[in-house]
């Protein structure tokens, strides 16, 4: 039972992380290839605070705050460069984060931080708490998408220049997307640190950023339900099938390529098209 609880927690953490990237890349159309850096900011802060004896519930908002602040600064770059340039810049931010952490003795350097104190909850309690967080974030995403802000995000993703002509303050909304998305990634990072009780620079590198991106792409860029399902499935697959565990990157890479090449709107798009086709056929009868 312990194993299932641990797996469920991992899945919930993946879902949270994927939803946080989906907010930036899916809702607002700002591609980020360095999202794991914000997971790292949250995780490292939580780990340091936990070692200093700060209680679990107090570290979460602090992790969100710091990751969101760093994210807003990184978001400033999205005002300066667009599309593929932004992709390269955010990728650079990811490499920069890992490069800095590696050389910091007080952050554990290459070895990382081990023996992070737990959350004072039972394993089951922590799992329920993480799942609850995931559900709350899902609800937040659904709410956001329907709000005025969500519609502006969508407009920016579709056509930034038109939104500008319409008199929308595009920079402010872009920064808001980055702030919310990276703060959620910081929250996820804190949960990650408490769950695994070990963090190192390699846990937040480029591979992690690509893994979460493939979750978003497979689920369907912008779709809350699709991304949730994809993140849960993709994080559980390596544990379920030994073969996939051994060749995790081969599977993720191929999936990323095949999905974007043949089904660019992801699982959500597939399901939607299928449903609509049925409905249309039903209507014509």
């Amino acid at each position, binding site marked *: 039972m312990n194993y299932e609880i641990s797996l469920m927690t991992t899945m919930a953490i993946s879902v949270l992380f994927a939803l946080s990237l989906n907010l930036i890349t899916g809702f607002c159309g700002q591609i980020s290839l360095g999202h794991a850096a914000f997971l790292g900011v949250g995780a490292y802060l939580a780990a340091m605070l936990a070692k200093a004896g700060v209680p679990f519930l107090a570290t979460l908002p602090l992790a969100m705050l710091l990751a969101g602040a760093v994210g807003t600064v990184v978001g400033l770059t999205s005002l300066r460069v667009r599309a593929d340039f932004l992709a*390269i810049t955010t990728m650079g931010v990811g490499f920069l984060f890992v*490069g800095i952490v590696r050389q910091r003795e007080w952050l554990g350097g290459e070895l990382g931080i081990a023996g992070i104190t737990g959350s004072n909850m039972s394993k089951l309690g922590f799992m329920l708490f993480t799942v609850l967080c995931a559900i709350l974030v899902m609800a937040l995403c659904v709410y956001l998408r329907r709000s005025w802000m969500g519609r502006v995000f969508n407009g920016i993703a579709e056509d930034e220049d038109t939104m500008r002509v319409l008199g929308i303050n595009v920079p402010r909304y872009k920064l808001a997307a980055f702030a919310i998305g990276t703060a959620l990634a910081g929250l996820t990072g804190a949960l990650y640190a408490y769950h695994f009780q070990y963090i190192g620079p390699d846990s937040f590198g480029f591979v992690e950023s*690509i893994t979460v991106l493939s979750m978003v792409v497979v689920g369907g860029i912008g779709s809350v339900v699709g991304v949730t399902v994809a993140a849960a499935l993709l994080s559980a697959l390596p544990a379920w099938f030994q073969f996939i565990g051994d060749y995790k990157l081969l599977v993720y890479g191929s999936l990323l390529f095949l999905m974007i090449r043949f089904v660019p709107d992801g699982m959500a798009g597939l399901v939607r098209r299928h449903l609509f086709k049925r409905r249309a056929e039903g209507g014509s009868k």
Partner: protein
Amino acid sequence: MLLVELFTQGLVQGSIYALIALGLTLVYGLLRILHVAHAAFFTLGAYVGILVCNASGSLILGFAAAMAIAGCAGVITYRLAYQPLLDKPPFVALIASIGLYIASEEAFRVFFGAQGISFVDPPLQQQLLLFGTIRLKMAELLVMIGSLAIIFVLSRLQNGTRLGLACQATVSDPQMAESFGISLRLVRDLNFFVGSALAAFAGVWVALLNNLVEPTMGSVPSYKALAIIVLGGLGSVRGTLAAALVLGVVEAYGTIYLGKLLDRNAIAFAFLILVLMVRPQGLFSRR
């Protein structure tokens, strides 16, 4: 003397970066695709080069085989992966390319093993002493001369032949070029062939310098080459060359003087972010 030695090491590294980045620039100039999977041909070239050289004993044959096979693989990749995505937004092709690259890295691991392979009898390892002060390996000297020569020849071909002019015309206005009877297909295939062959060329040199080929040898150059073409002002051959050499030298000094602060890869990207914030159009772009 440390300064001079660091400078030459930087130039050696820079000329390898230039060879890799050149192919990326050709592809970006033509199709506006950030071709991350380009580094897969760098690794592929290194493997083919080392295997053929070990089997036949001839380094030249190794180079030829590596460039031919990687070139063809590049064209096939373009046809299968990128051609159908040309009318989609640019990040679609970028994501496809990243997926392709990660999968190919793992495929190399599965096919050739994780621990890497080396030359049985590594050629060109003699030590040279230039101007009485600079110590270099033969291979290091040749890679500098070779990459500069290739880039020079390429730019002459681009300006002096019909096909080269056709390529340039396609870059500036594909539709107009097509209506003047230029085959877009031919130009694009040719670009992928030349670019991938250059990456393979660089791959064999790196194999010679380190006497080791690993599945992951392409990962750092692939992302760094992206940084280089952005610094060079996307699509400009001369800018790419300059940016590659500058980055090689900056890294060589940075590793010594900033090593406590940042690691080698982070230096490249810190430099990139800094430049992009000040000049979003790249370091050497005239736009």
